[in-house]
């Protein structure tokens, strides 16, 4: 019943054109928004950009974890991951408007604030415009280079089947994870945490990475559901993999809940004014509804749904959960960004730009993604077949986990 690869390629072509259209229109609307309310534009645009940065960042983590640990779950989606990280150069270009709006977004970039604020003066060594821009460029450069090499080696492995190339990817992944994790940490400090430059939380980077992995898994599940109609995905991906992806999403959601609870409880219990301000703005003036919404829909609802193990074997239901989770990612980023004092919202405040920016950046992202994916000569890692087969041999091994996973 599944359609062949040619149909998939045609579909990706269409997807690329449509998303490009959506992206251009969306960003055009953003530009209109910029002329109307530039501060709001930067806020919404930052949020939209961060959403798709999270997807790519999460995919990078997953790809490196896959290279380190192996397994059929990763092999089947390896091409998707590789394409998702190849969007980093595009994201880098899309970051340029943020650099234009630094004083709008970040208090520390305003000379008049810095002149009177001792704390910001202290942090100026780190939080200053040239260094910030330099770091942003370095991050995107590093990520793009990493993405480039993973794609290049993967192609090489397809062509030559040289296991040495496979080992090379594995060897990059170890230190890669380390430096990538570190760069993501500081990127999150720079781009989001420094919206409130007086506040800090050392778990913020970990929290961002967790959010990124949720976004990535949700995105991947949605894509897999979409691609299951086509070969080769239809024949490679089995129920077992769907179950795996659902479990990973479940794990990411649990980790997210864990991180949120830890940070919240530590700050609540410690009750030090320096830290509580961040929460106080977020649990008053209407923001508390967002807080509750997040607790409910980024944690409790998907958590409870994914606890039901028959559900995890049904791609439609898993996708439904993934769609929900992905939408709530936007709300989570909104919750992290919008209440910042720098935006001067009196209380809970939405703007149409919030949605349009997510869609606009998303369009461009999807266009780039489908472009890269479509250029792959094969949708499956060819010379990993050995490994895929081996995995199936293991099918019986430790069925306890396989049959009743929790």
């Amino acid at each position: 019943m599944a359609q062949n690869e040619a149909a998939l390629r045609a579909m990706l072509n269409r997807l690329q054109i449509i998303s490009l259209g959506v992206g251009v229109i969306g960003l055009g609307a953003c530009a209109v928004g910029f002329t109307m309310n530039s501060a709001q534009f930067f806020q919404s645009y930052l949020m939209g950009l961060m959403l798709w940065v999270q997807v790519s960042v999460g995919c990078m983590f997953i790809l490196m974890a896959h290279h380190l640990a192996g397994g059929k779950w990763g092999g089947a989606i390896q091409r998707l991951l590789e394409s998702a990280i190849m969007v980093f150069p595009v994201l880098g270009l899309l970051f340029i408007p943020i650099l234009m709006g630094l004083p709008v977004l970040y208090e520390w970039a305003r000379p008049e604030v810095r002149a009177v604020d001792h704390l910001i003066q202290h942090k100026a060594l780190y939080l200053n415009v040239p260094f910030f821009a330099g770091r942003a460029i370095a991050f995107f450069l590093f990520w793009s280079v990493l993405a480039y090499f993973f794609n290049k080696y993967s192609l090489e492995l397809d062509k030559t089947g040289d296991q040495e190339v496979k080992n090379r990817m594995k060897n990059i992944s170890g230190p890669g994870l380390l430096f990538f994790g570190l760069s993501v940490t500081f990127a999150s400090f720079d781009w989001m945490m420094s919206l409130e430059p007086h506040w800090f939380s050392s778990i913020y980077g970990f929290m961002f990475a967790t959010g990124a992995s949720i976004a990535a898994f949700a995105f991947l599940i949605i894509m897999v559901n979409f691609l299951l109609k086509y070969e080769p995905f239809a024949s490679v991906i089995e129920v077992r993999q769907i179950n795996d992806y659902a479990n990973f999403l479940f794990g990411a959601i649990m980790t997210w809940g864990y991180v949120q609870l830890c940070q919240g409880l530590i700050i609540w219990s410690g009750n030090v004014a320096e830290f509580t301000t961040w929460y106080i703005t977020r649990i008053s003036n209407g923001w508390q509804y967002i807080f509750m919404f997040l607790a409910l829909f980024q944690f409790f609802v998907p958590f409870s749904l994914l606890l039901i193990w028959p559900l995890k074997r049904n791609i439609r239901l898993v996708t439904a959960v993934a769609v929900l989770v992905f939408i709530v990612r936007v709300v989570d980023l909104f919750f992290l960004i919008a209440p910042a004092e720098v935006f001067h919202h009196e209380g809970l405040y939405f703007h149409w730009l919030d949605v349009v920016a997510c869609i606009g950046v998303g369009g461009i992202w999807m266009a780039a993604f489908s472009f890269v994916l479509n250029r792959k000569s094969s949708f499956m890692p060819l010379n990993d077949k050995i490994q895929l087969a081996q995995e199936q041999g293991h099918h019986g091994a430790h069925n306890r986990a396989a049959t009743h996973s929790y």
Partner: protein
Amino acid sequence: MHAENTQPPVYGLMVEFDTPETLVEATRQAVAAGYKKLDAYSPFPIEEVSDLVSSVRQKFHTLPLLVLGAGITGLATAFLLQWYTSAINFQIFNFWRVIIDGYPINIGGRPLNSWPAFTVVMFELTVLFSAGTAVLGMFGLNGLPLLYHPVFNVERFSLASTERFFLCIEAADSQFNLEKTQKFLEGLKPTNPVEKVMSSEYFSEGLEWAELL
């Protein structure tokens, strides 16, 4: 001293195999032949065999549901315990000097119902209750402890915990017939002759309800 005419009842007939594959095949045939009260014994779990046997012996997957119930109970217990003792000034129990009262106290200016702080104990009790139920439920549904069991009367059964695989069709099965069943079992090509498993008049497995769950 047993009375001489008391015959110990027959529990069932047992055959032995030396590989898991032959056991799987034998169980499949026994199930196909319509036997319901049968059980296989192996030194490690074999999923196929377990599935085959449970398809005729078990109706529901009770254990996960029990655990879920226990988990929810644990969660509720923990929350109610903490909420009641820290936030509620209400007597639930005053009987013969045993008074159980909440004691709301202002501690560090924190709210009486400090739910963020209560989450930790809620989590722990959920896990504790669930894990306890998983283990006790597993033993309970398996009817353990059951130190004496007729199958141990078979001489070679001590190998069931090392390297040998056994299939036993129980006399309680409606299709059980000493001769016919023996014939059937011989047809499964066991490695040793079919053994008659003798029970004791003192033995009853009890807990038949567990079979259904």
